[in-house]
């Protein structure tokens, strides 16, 4: 199975047999792959009935739960890794959710579209429009993305929360890393992946 580019990047970070919680698991693509390839004991949370139905057909442990209602029902230290792929910007309280993720899991992986990307800046700064792109395909009035941020914003919050950034990967729209992005990630990266650890 070939995973969507961003999910393949996440998959590399997961150890075999790990216990994984995927927040906003969508159609369960990542979990199905982790279950098949790494024998991972994984669970996914989602609130969309159509997604849940697809997860069931794949045999994924999908649990219907709205992230905005919190994840306080999960016990401390219950998971090796808690993943949130491209959902951070769509939840009501991303900061609290991040705290909860690191309470439940030993580590977590967070990915989001970088609003600091030059295309976004161009569209807003020069054309005067809210950015619309491959990763941010919605118009301002129908977007689920209510908490967009840049990599700098995100790292600032991590510093404030004392969250340890174990690893960062910044990529272009095709999920490729190259030198230009490393040089000026907040300007050049269209997407960011963070592997985070508990406050030291």
């Amino acid at each position, binding site marked *: 199975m070939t995973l969507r580019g961003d999910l393949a990047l996440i998959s590399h970070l997961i150890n075999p047999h790990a216990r994984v919680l995927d927040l906003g698991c969508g159609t369960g693509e990542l979990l199905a792959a982790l279950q098949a390839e790494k024998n991972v004991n994984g669970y996914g949370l989602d609130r969309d009935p159509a997604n849940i139905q697809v997860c069931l057909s794949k045999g994924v442990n*999908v*649990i219907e739960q709205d992230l905005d209602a919190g994840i306080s029902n999960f016990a401390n230290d219950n998971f090796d890794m808690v993943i949130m792929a491209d959902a951070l910007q769509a939840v009501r309280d991303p900061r609290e959710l991040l705290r909860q993720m690191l309470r439940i899991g030993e580590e977590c992986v967070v990915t989001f579209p970088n609003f600091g990307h030059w295309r976004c800046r161009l569209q807003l700064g020069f054309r005067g429009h809210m950015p619309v792109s491959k990763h941010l395909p919605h118009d301002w009035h129908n977007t689920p993305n209510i908490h967009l941020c840049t990599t700098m914003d995100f790292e600032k919050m991590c510093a404030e929360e004392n969250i340890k950034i174990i690893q960062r990967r910044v990529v272009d729209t095709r999920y490729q890393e190259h030198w230009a992005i490393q040089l000026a990630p907040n300007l050049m990266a269209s997407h960011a992946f963070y592997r985070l650890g508990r406050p030291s």
Partner: protein
Amino acid sequence: MPTGSATVGKITPQHFQCAEPLTLQNGAVLPAYELVYETYGTLNDNKSNALLICHALSGHHHAAGVHSDDDPKPGWWDACIGPGKAMDTNRFFVVSLNNLGGCHGSTGPRSINPDTGKIYGPDFPNVVVRDWVRSQAALADHLGIETFAAVVGGSLGGMQALQWAIDYPQRVGACVAIASAAKLSAQNIAFNEIARQAIGSDQDFAEGRYADEGINPDRGLGLARMIGHVTYLSDDGMGTKFGREIKSGDFDEGDEVEFQVESYLNYQGQAFTRYFDANTYLLMTKALDHFDPARDTDGDLVEAFRSATCKFLILSFSSDWRFSAQRSQEIVDALVKAKKNVASAVIESEHGHDSFLLPIERYTAALGTFLNRCLDERSGTLS
């Protein structure tokens, strides 16, 4: 997943006489007992496609199809059992029985007590969910079924499915608990107690010996059913179905007025007394109140699930307040913590607790997909 009108057709109930004594949870011994059951579909050669249905408070063995051509109504779970339905009889061999203590043909309060030669009545021992599961396992032995592909139940039936997963981990491939709970809330027990008081306060209850005297506590049992019935519906659902529609009379004329909802409830209550036994009702509600698998593990539900090895599907309905989605979430949380494979869904429905009996599209699709996937995994057609 199709939920069409496909049916299993005409069904003849079967009887299993168990000569093996059953020691109940409370220490009482049933020297022998009978279970009435039905089956739908065909057991495959390696007997890997069996599915057990566990019924709820007022249920019985007749879950699907009809008993005769002029039967006005099919079995109680016909919406979900049949060719191409969620519990697909083209693929599964479905077993459905009337539980011990029931009043539809299995040994219960209406049966003759071998010790006295008289009807058991109130002397029928209290049976609990675990006892049912043990008697169901005896039925499985009788049918040559070593492992059920899945055990499925709604409400009290879901509790039996959970108990199966705990007590017979090697005999269950998947457990589906629908609109159920790991234990009843105080409010839920309270409703059961009101129902029991309604029965007990009927003079014709005669301390449970009504059958001996050739009478029946129709008023009390009918009232118990009316109370229960209201709790199985939602405010919105009743509003949609009845509103404030008046069946007879006119407020302006100063008449005695009967609302449609009153007429409906009175009818339901009375109809119930024709096919249900008051002592069975007491027994079933007590089994509901008693159920709490965590009692054996110092109140720790996670620990109670430790023995389970099957996959779980936990379904609930948005408007169900008698067995709310929160109760199902508690089961899910414990299963996740116990590292069991579990999936869950909260189905949008305005039909309250009764939703689990209805052909709600998302519900039957989720149930069918999960069960079919389990069967595919078992038969090795998936990697």
